[in-house]
């Protein structure tokens, strides 16, 4: 593959990754911030949250590999795992690396969730709230500036995710509220 093809492939898969990641984050927020049992939608939301996250990995892997292999900018294999080591834009590439490291932790713990305490799994899963903004910042800073579609999509993802996050923060906490309702209603 020519260097140019690799470069375009890296752009395109980066964009696909950030869009899918944002979708996964929103689906996760919908599950944890549910107001009451919402039937079929809850099942679809949960299924998509699990399987879109796996699908995203295919795009993300291509994004990372092509970004390293192409030679238009210099990013070495070490930057795959160790953040802030890239010769090209160390800060913004580093944020991408950091987000990838967190993603690996989140996915590994979810795969072996049945072997962990719920508390440990939750602690790692919450790192997703750090990982997603890092990925957005990485995309906005590096998303080719003269292509408004690239940067625009990332900004749109940021806005959509922020909206979902705001909903999650203002929403009720299903378990706590239900306990309160039941206590208020007595044990009839």
């Amino acid at each position, binding site marked *: 593959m020519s260097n140019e093809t690799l470069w375009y492939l890296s752009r395109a898969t980066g964009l696909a990754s950030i869009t899918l990641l944002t979708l996964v984050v929103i689906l996760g927020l919908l*599950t*944890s911030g*549910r107001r*009451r*049992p*919402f*039937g*079929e939608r*809850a*099942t679809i939301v*949960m*299924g998509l949250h*699990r399987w879109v996250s796996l699908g995203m990995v295919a795009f993300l892997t291509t994004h990372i590999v092509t970004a390293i292999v192409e030679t238009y900018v210099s990013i070495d294999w070490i930057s795959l795992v160790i953040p802030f080591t890239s010769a090209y834009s160390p800060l913004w590439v580093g944020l991408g690396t950091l987000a990838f490291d967190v993603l690996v932790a989140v996915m590994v713990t979810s795969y072996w*969730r*049945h072997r962990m305490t*719920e508390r440990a799994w939750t602690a790692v899963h919450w790192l997703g709230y750090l990982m997603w903004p890092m990925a957005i910042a990485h995309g906005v800073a590096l998303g080719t500036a003269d292509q408004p579609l690239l940067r625009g999509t990332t900004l749109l993802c940021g806005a959509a995710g922020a909206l979902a996050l705001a909903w999650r923060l203002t929403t009720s906490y*299903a*378990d706590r509220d*239900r306990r309160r*309702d*039941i206590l208020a209603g007595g044990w009839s």
Partner: protein
Amino acid sequence: MSSDQRRPSRRRAPVSAGAPRIGVDRVACSGHGICAQTLADVVGLDEWGYPIVADRPVEAKDADLAVKLCPARALYLRP
């Protein structure tokens, strides 16, 4: 008694021999209601959205999916 209360359906689908039954960890369960969707034959919801499980076997592959999709990791299989 609220109107959204649902009981497990009386309809019984034939189930293969040695099929598992479903158990719920009542402490872990946070009432997402997903099991009542994926296992509509054996799981219904009470008026607060927590599962009422019928003591009947279910197809292993349906049970596996329900266990996998439970966000609170509260479902388990029992023989």
